[in-house]
């Protein structure tokens, strides 16, 4: 089973030089810590910043410079600032090469639910619906099961949807899955996890790739 940091490390292996990437809150944020040395990836923060850098030092803190999680951040050389409409023009227009976000549920046909639990206080979708509609290359990073031990990889989402038929890849603590032809394809399995473990934890249709690999995490 992968730790959250290991999930982030595996996602970082998917990055390519020159990509513009939007990282959601939670596990996705950790991906920034594992960008390979020498690779140049620009982080987009949907509140209006491209070229987001690490958190500031105490003396660098600027209340006018935050990320989409409302955390204080810095800018890297070559950064740019823009309005929310320009930011979502980038996202909606397909200019962001990769979006990584968390989810409560993903279905075997690529639907995603990650913003609302009926009966609980609804905080809102923020930019999530725009992000899942904006690019073909989305990676969902999440734990395979919820706190009650129930699978988050389902035949159909039970929660209100964030987007339909938009997720092609999911990385969980158990493995990496592509979504194709109405099924989760287990492409890579986490070290120490058996295919049977994955099957038990997956409620949606699961196909084990004929070329299943064990995930390599340094």
């Amino acid at each position, binding site marked *: 089973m992968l730790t959250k940091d290991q999930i982030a490390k595996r996602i970082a292996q998917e990055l390519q030089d020159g990509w513009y990437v939007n990282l959601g809150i939670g596990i996705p944020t950790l991906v920034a810590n594992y960008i390979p040395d020498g690779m140049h990836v620009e982080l987009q923060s949907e509140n209006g910043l491209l070229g987001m850098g690490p958190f500031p030092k105490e003396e660098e803190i600027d*209340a006018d410079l935050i990320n989409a999680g409302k955390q*204080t951040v810095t800018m890297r050389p070559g950064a740019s600032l823009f*309005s*929310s409409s320009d930011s979502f023009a980038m996202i909606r227009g397909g200019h962001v090469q990769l979006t990584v976000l968390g989810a409560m549920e993903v279905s075997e046909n690529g639907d995603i639910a990650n913003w609302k639990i009926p009966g609980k206080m609804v905080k809102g979708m*923020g*930019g999530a619906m*725009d992000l899942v*509609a904006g690019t073909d290359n989305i990676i969902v990073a999440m734990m395979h099961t919820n706190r009650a031990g129930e699978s988050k990889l389902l035949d159909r989402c039970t929660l209100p949807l964030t987007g339909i038929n938009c997720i092609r890849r999911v990385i969980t603590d158990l493995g990496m899955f592509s979504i194709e032809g109405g099924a989760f394809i287990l492409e890579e399995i986490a070290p120490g996890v058996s295919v049977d473990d994955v099957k038990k934890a997956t409620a949606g249709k699961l196909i084990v790739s004929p070329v299943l690999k064990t995930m390599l995490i340094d």
Partner: protein
Amino acid sequence: MNKVVKDAHEAIQGITNGMTLMLGGFGLCGIPENCIAALVKAGQKDLTCISNNAGVDDFGIGLMLQQRQVKKMISSYVGENAEFERQLLSGELEVELTPQGTLAEKCRAGGAGIPAFFTATGYGTEIAEGKETREINGRMYVLEESLTADYALVKAWKGDKYGNLIYKGTARNFNPMMAMAGKITIAEVEELVEPGELDPNQVHTPGIFVQRIFQGKNYEKRIEQRTVSK
């Protein structure tokens, strides 16, 4: 041309019960602090507030919620606010949740004379319920209508007496589009300068969109998540 007003109190004259306001800002970053304080003091009721967020309990729009001045919020994310939650659950407050990018574009469209546009955002979700959907070039889209407001309250870094504005950092966020979409737009700025002092090439919001401007004071600029690296 006289757009300069003395302070927030003078700036908000004309805002009355039941009006629709846009308020710039993302979280607590780039919010019109002075105007919000003046509204809390003036006590207008039944306001519809279009703002990406609803502030926190004791700052931003949260202060207006405490005074029960807000009838309806149009926002993308309204967490971090216990009083908000209480009013929502008790039915005192109505909330219309809108995806953040759609909200930004609805404001821009309202300011740009575009009454409606198609977007893929929200297709297949409850956001699209009751809205026209259409296939264009093989993909499904939702028709979204634009937003305007009786007053837009925006915050900029620098401004000149003609209403030209320059924002700073990520405090720009929703302010430029809301400045476009207000029937009357009030800008509060940290530094008010003479025409000619701002580089025309660097103006973010041309003065044509701004009807009133003043230099605000005592900016708190509260930080929600103070994160530092070692």
